[in-house]
């Protein structure tokens, strides 16, 4: 019999505090105690996490299939690159602009696309993802995007000094991008949590589960979907901006701004757990873990992954994507809500948070990690 804890009771607060302390501990531990290479890998994971969080808003919670988020990532990347290199903006300010541009494009795409349903939206967004790299290479846009060559030298002239973090120059700048990533990740998480745990979020879930029903209950599906798509695009652009600054270039052949990027965001989200707040973050960390492990296995000549892919199959590239795909195929069978869903199910055997009865006065937000099971209904599209 699991222990029962009432929501917002002192016991619940203790759980929340322990959880928060653990997260803060991990965030502080990574730059302080691990190698710079690991910090860089984690920063990549943060980029994927932000993108997956944004995708989760549309796909996980609202049920809109989007294969176009790599384009929003690319918009972020190019907005920052163009503003920094061509117009001499300070990099920090370009994040606002990137999010704004992506928001407008997102709404513009959403308006016509959302008249459609399910697989047709997937087709429209798929064309967006395929179109974006072609457009930035187009000779008519070369004055803006520098065509196939891409934009080089996107960087901070001088890396700002932050309180508590200190001066991080030269090789140490990897840590600066880590902290910048953490700030953006917190923003993305709060935006997503703010939407999901509010009235708007509940109306989105209602749209996902039964659009007609939601409309009858007074939700305006078109408005809600358009706005959430725009916000999601804006959040995704933040990850693109960070990426442009970290690798200091915007390149049309970057794999993350091609359709493969969209697919990776989607799979990262499903791996961690669709329609869960922590899913995209956990998924991104696991994805980068898989990626770095398989990459190392490919060169060091040790381990089972190396035996299977290098000796048996004679792989010439990193098997990371293949391993990810196989894991996803297992996940969709055994854990429809990903790693986080699985962990929640296990945790429910030990401890159960009893939600407060409905209709209670006052509006205390529900703790993200222990969101009650009723959110876990299968998303349908």
């Amino acid at each position: 019999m699991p222990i029962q804890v009432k929501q917002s009771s002192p016991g619940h607060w203790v759980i929340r505090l322990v959880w928060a302390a653990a997260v803060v501990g991990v965030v502080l531990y990574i730059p302080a105690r691990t190698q710079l290479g690991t910090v860089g890998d984690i920063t990549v994971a943060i980029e994927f996490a932000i993108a997956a969080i944004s995708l989760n808003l549309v796909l996980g919670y609202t049920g809109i299939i989007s294969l176009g988020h790599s384009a929003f990532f690319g918009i972020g990347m190019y907005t920052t690159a163009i503003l920094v290199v061509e117009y001499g903006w300070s990099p920090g300010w370009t994040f606002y602009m990137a999010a704004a541009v992506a928001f407008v494009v997102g709404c513009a795409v959403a308006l016509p696309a959302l008249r459609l349903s399910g697989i047709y939206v997937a087709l429209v967004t798929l064309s967006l993802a395929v179109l974006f790299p072609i457009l930035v290479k187009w000779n008519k846009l070369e004055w803006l995007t520098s065509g196939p060559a891409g934009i080089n030298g996107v960087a901070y002239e001088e890396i700002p000094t932050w309180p508590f973090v200190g001066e991080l120059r030269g090789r140490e700048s990897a840590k600066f991008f880590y902290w910048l990533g953490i700030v953006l990740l917190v923003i993305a998480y709060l935006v997503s949590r703010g939407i999901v745990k509010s009235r708007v979020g509940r109306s989105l879930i209602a749209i996902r589960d039964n659009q007609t029903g939601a409309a009858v209950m007074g939700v305006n599906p078109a408005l809600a979907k358009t706005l959430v798509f725009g916000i999601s695009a804006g959040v995704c652009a933040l990850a693109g901006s960070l990426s442009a600054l970290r690798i200091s270039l915007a390149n049309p052949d970057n794999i993350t701004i091609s359709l493969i990027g969209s697919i990776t965001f989607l799979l990262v989200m499903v791996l961690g757990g669709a329609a869960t707040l922590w899913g995209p973050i956990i998924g991104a960390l696991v994805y980068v873990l898989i990626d770095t492990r398989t990459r190392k296995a490919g060169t060091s000549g040790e381990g089972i992954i190396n035996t299977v892919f290098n000796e048996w199959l004679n792989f010439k590239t990193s098997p990371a994507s293949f391993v990810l795909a196989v894991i996803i195929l297992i996940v969709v069978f055994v854990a429809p809500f990903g790693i986080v869903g699985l962990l929640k199910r296990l945790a429910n055997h030990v401890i159960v948070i009893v939600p407060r009865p409905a209709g209670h006065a006052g509006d205390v937000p529900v703790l993200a990690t222990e969101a009650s099971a009723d959110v876990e209904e299968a998303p349908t599209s």
Partner: protein
Amino acid sequence: MDRFFEALFLGLSSGAIYALVALAIVVIFRGTGTLNFAQGEMATMSAFVAWIFDDMGVPLAISVLIGMAFGFLLGAATEVSIIRPLQKKSSLAVFVATIALFLGINALTNGIWGTPPEESLDSLFPNDPDDFVRLLGTVWRYTSIGALVVTLAVTALLFLLFQKTRFGLAMRGVASNAESSRLVGIPTGRVLAGSWGIAGALGALAATIVAGNNGQVTPTMMFTVFVYATAAATLGGLDSPGGAVVGGLLIGVIENVAAEFSEDWVGQDMKLAVALLVIFVVLLFKPSGLFGTAKVERV
């Protein structure tokens, strides 16, 4: 006028390939109501299998047939082992699974056969420099004519299959109402696996033609073809086989005429953008496509 005929013919011959893959997409969509995003990658893998046999000295035509058989098995196995169990869970799970298949098969072909020298495959059709006829002032190469003829022949065969055989009748029954079909004793499972198999074989045939025209099999060769084919299937209507063929040929002609007559704006680089624009426009104004049945939603 010569330029027009040249673009027209180029368009028809590349459109024939799009039509083949679009047919595969439509056959699956009619059966299980899913869009198989891994269609192009499955086809690429089948082409590699055809190459393996071709490389061992098996005659080309036989190798292509073996590749098609592999495509059939791959498609049917995917339906039975992945798609069918997942459809009981949710349509989103099926979508995610086809995406994962896309990534996985892509990584597999890239890993095994990815780096040059790439595998060379001859064309099914005579492909020497002097293998062409002159007609209407343009050069019509046998390889292009071959692709066109194969597509039309396959379409005719599929039409016979759909309209004149028991299996085709069962397929049409399942497409129109799977549950009722099961109730009247149609083995829906076998029909759906068969649809995926046929689609896999069609994709394999298209991939071997593409590889033959390029002279080699490459892991990425079907990606743009797949995008064109989705545009074609959307234009024709996702549930209409005839529409897929018309759509494929139209897309091929539109992109080539646009590239020929607007070299400055479209040119070779933006051909794909034209096809994508077609998807946008069609879905905006007629989501069911030219020949598809409009979906009526029951509340």
